[in-house]
């Protein structure tokens, strides 16, 4: 790599041009892009599991249909993103299969929220309402990403996430307007998920990798900017449901236009994500392992069948 080549690349980034998978790019940039999209894709796939638990128990036909469709979208986002990551990883010879098996050997992380329990129907609603609501904020900011294929695939993903948020909001509204037990169930879920949502956007002090992603404009907003946006949007929404938030530090300061909040236990959540030691981490990884490894015979059979049918033609 010559300095001139790098300078031209950085100029393109500065001018807001999109980088395509076949363009020249520094290895450093490529690795960061792969890491980001790989983690995002795996998180979408793992994000299917908390709600999958509630699909068979959805309490009416409309909810059942909506929840199946939502979980399908999450798997679909995983599929799209892993294809984009696979494309970016082509020079390294890494394929989707490797990206999925990385999960089993702890070589790729997934979002903290998907390590957590979803013990009630209210959790199924809150995930759509808060987690997808948070994801929209993060993903909308990534629409500006300098990596073109990522920015484009996110257009569709963002559109679908906003349906998910509306689905979550609809479930949550029914509970908020429901019986005392339903409201209690909803309040417990809000209380359970709020600290995870504060962690969701990452620490205010960003890692060196995250900072380099900012320099390359792979991402363009800081963790704290995204979190502030989330708090600003969701505090009034949660309060208007007649629910409370488990944080007595929450307050808006007009002079700084910022919210104060109680910091989540950074160490505890980071450890959980690094070591897959959350309450549901291992059980959900096991589901993915079942899908991938226990059913390798199906994928192998399809390759053989394809060869047989081709030979007959």
């Amino acid at each position: 790599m010559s300095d001139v080549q790098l300078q031209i690349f950085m100029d393109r980034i500065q001018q807001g041009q999109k980088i395509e998978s076949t363009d020249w790019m520094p290895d450093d940039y490529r690795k960061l892009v792969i890491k980001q999209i790989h983690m995002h894709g795996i998180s979408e796939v793992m994000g299917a599991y908390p709600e999958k638990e509630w699909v068979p128990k959805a309490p009416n036909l409309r909810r059942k249909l909506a929840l199946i469709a939502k979980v399908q979208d999450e798997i679909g986002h995983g599929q799209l993103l892993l294809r984009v990551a696979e494309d970016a990883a082509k020079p390294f010879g890494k394929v989707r299969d490797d990206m999925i098996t990385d999960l089993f050997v702890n070589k790729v992380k997934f979002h903290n929220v998907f390590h957590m329990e979803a013990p009630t129907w209210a959790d199924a609603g809150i995930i759509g309402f808060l987690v997808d609501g948070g994801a929209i904020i993060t993903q909308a900011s990534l629409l500006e990403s300098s990596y073109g294929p990522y920015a484009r695939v996110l257009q569709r993903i963002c559109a679908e996430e906003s349906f998910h948020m509306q689905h979550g909001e609809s479930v949550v509204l029914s509970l908020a307007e429901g019986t005392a037990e339903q409201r209690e169930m909803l309040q417990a879920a809000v209380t359970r998920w709020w600290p995870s949502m504060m962690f969701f956007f990452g620490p205010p002090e960003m890692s060196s990798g995250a900072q380099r992603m900012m320099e390359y404009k792979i991402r363009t907003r800081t963790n704290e900017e995204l979190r502030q946006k989330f708090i600003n949007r969701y505090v009034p929404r949660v309060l208007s449901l007649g629910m409370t938030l488990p944080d007595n530090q929450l307050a808006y300061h007009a002079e700084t236009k910022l919210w104060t909040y109680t910091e989540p236990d950074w160490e505890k959540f980071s450890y959980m994500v690094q070591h897959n030691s959350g309450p549901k981490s291992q059980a959900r990884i096991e589901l993915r392992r079942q899908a991938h490894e226990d059913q390798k015979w199906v994928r192998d059979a399809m390759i053989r069948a394809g060869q047989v049918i081709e030979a007959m033609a």
Partner: protein
Amino acid sequence: MNQAEQQLSNNYRTALIDLLYQMADDELTIGHRSSEWLGIAPDLEEDIAFSSISQDEVGHATFYFELLSELGEGDPDKLAFARTKEKRQNARVLERPNHDWAYTIARGYFYDVFDHIRLQELLQTNYTPLQKGVQKILREERYHLLHMETWFERLGVAKGEAKGRLENAVITIWPDLTDLFSLGRSNEILRKEGIFPISESALSDKWTQQVKPLFDRTELMWPGTPHVMTGNGRLGVHTSDLQQLLDMMTEVYRSDLIATW
């Protein structure tokens, strides 16, 4: 005044309602089972495809429950969630757990061939609301059938473990198939009243004519026409598998029967 509100003869009404329960319960049960593959299908693409199929099935069930509701049977959600095992009229094979992918595909294929025949026959029904819905539903079911047929054939021609599993699935499923072709207690009246034009044995024959050639193509042994009736789901005789399915499906619903969810 639509046909549902018209004065239908008692015989006609009872038979029509029976048939609609069979169809609604078939679709809801298989739709529920299909959705259990969410997140754990053999690859991501199939996960997405199977999810579309399960959505179609639950959607079709919803349509049939709505027709029942128009006939005075009550709220569709209540029909789907509140009826006990003994009131359900789905074929028993559909309530069985998914087992492995080969079982799921074989059952899905056998059921989809049957359902496709049933729907095509219903293009002749004299109950217009059903006839109209069936036209649309057939468009979707064609893809389900194509999907299942392709999988079935490919598992067969792949030989090895896949074919072994497919053979086991056929052996397990076969004794459960008999009530699939039953039209329940209204069998005769359905034909006489022009609601459903063909007999149980004609249904079964048409099914065999479609399924057997695929057995030949994939060199699978044909186990003969299913005939020993082990229990008739169309008459509400079900296995404990259905109870387990219902316990799971209605857990939240039952926690508060009058709440809005």
